[in-house]
């Protein structure tokens, strides 16, 4: 956990700010009301017990964050990596999953007046190994804040990043094949657990796309098209989650490339359940 211990208070504060305020309040039992104040107060403590607490919080609440998830197939021999690009392993839970933190530097251009600044993030990445119907290696990236203006209180734009998901993936899953998630996703669609409102999919001689008016469901309104799509490879597709118990409203996926994206917070960490359902039905 040296990366966490060595990090500046601002770095740890930005790390905690990636999580929903309700989770922060609950775990750190803070009496402060503003998210920024809670994060600063917790980031300012750097004793070993607090650093461990922060690492465990990040690991157990990663499912609450906005995420990009990449699923790879392997023959059962894949192991959790010992390290990661520009970072290190922070937690290892029984060799089944591990939490890593990478240091990502954003080059930011500020306006009024024109200036260049650097913004650093501790980037949480979790790697999981599953051995359900197939062997899978799952890499989950927390999506870092895109609107950097909030860190500077003036117009700001990201001009460059020191680290990309692609670079990190090359180190973790280089040589592995992206999992095809069509089967798992289509099973959830057929069961009514999810419904698609827009999709790109492959027809016999063309790449086709369907974008429903006012987010209507394809299966409900175009059953004939749904039948075609059940037999076609799906690419970038948006799904609504119909499970009332799940706090995730929607997610996007590129099933043919093994990618899932969660674009909003989920206080209960319900992204875990969706990933698990897709993998177990795949």
């Amino acid at each position, binding site marked *: 956990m040296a990366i966490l211990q060595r990090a500046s208070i601002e770095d740890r504060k930005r790390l905690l700010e990636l999580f929903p305020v309700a989770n922060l309040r609950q775990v750190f039992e803070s009496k402060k009301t503003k998210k920024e104040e809670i994060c600063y107060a917790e980031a300012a403590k750097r004793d070993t017990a607090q650093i461990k607490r922060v690492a465990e919080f990040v690991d157990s609440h990663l499912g609450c964050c906005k995420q990009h998830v990449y699923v790879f197939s392997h023959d059962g021999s894949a192991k959790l990596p010992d390290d990661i690009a520009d970072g290190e392993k922070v937690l290892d839970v029984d060799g089944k999953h591990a939490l890593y933190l990478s240091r990502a530097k954003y080059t930011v251009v500020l306006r009024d007046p024109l200036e260049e600044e650097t913004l650093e993030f501790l980037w949480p990445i979790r790697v999981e190994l599953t051995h359900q119907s197939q062997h899978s290696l799952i890499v989950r990236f927390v999506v870092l804040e895109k609107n950097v203006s909030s860190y500077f209180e003036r117009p700001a734009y990201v001009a460059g990043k020191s680290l990309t998901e692609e670079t990190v993936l090359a180190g973790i899953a280089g040589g592995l094949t992206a999992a095809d998630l069509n089967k798992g996703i289509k099973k959830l669609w057929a069961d009514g657990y999810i419904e698609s409102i*827009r999709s790109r999919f492959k027809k016999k001689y063309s790449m086709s796309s369907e974008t429903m008016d006012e987010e209507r469901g394809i299966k409900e309104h175009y059953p004939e098209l749904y039948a075609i799509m059940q037999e076609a490879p799906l690419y*970038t597709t948006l799904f609504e989650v119909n499970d009332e118990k799940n706090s995730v409203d929607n997610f996007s996926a*590129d099933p043919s*490339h093994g990618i899932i994206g969660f674009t909003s917070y989920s206080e209960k960490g319900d992204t875990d359940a969706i990933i698990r359902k897709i993998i177990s039905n795949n």
Partner: protein
Amino acid sequence: MQLLEKLFQIISKVAPPPKFSEKQAEMLSRLNPDKFYIENVRSILGVSHVAAVQICEAAVRQGLFERRVEVVCPDGAVAASADTEANLPETVRCWHEEEGLLEPEELPTKQLEKTTFYRLNDKSDSLPFGQTA
């Protein structure tokens, strides 16, 4: 064929009564009575765009069609619809693709394109032909 009959009545008012071919009747029957555009009507009748507008607007005046408006996201997706532009939501959720995944963004309706469409007025059956609603 409800739509066909109503449209026939309207056209009779603004132009010489047309003779519908079987193909046109079939095309008309495939039209969604809850949502159709001027181009749908124009292509079925084989008239000019201006004539199709006149026909649709005459149908609105007679209470047979309802005119509605929809707001269109930058990628062409219809985000919301209402009876008038003023009744559209102030902002709508649109989606854009980033690195193979879809990201939402909330955009102000006034900055987005609007499209007019029509739908069959369910209540128009009770109106005597020729009466203005």
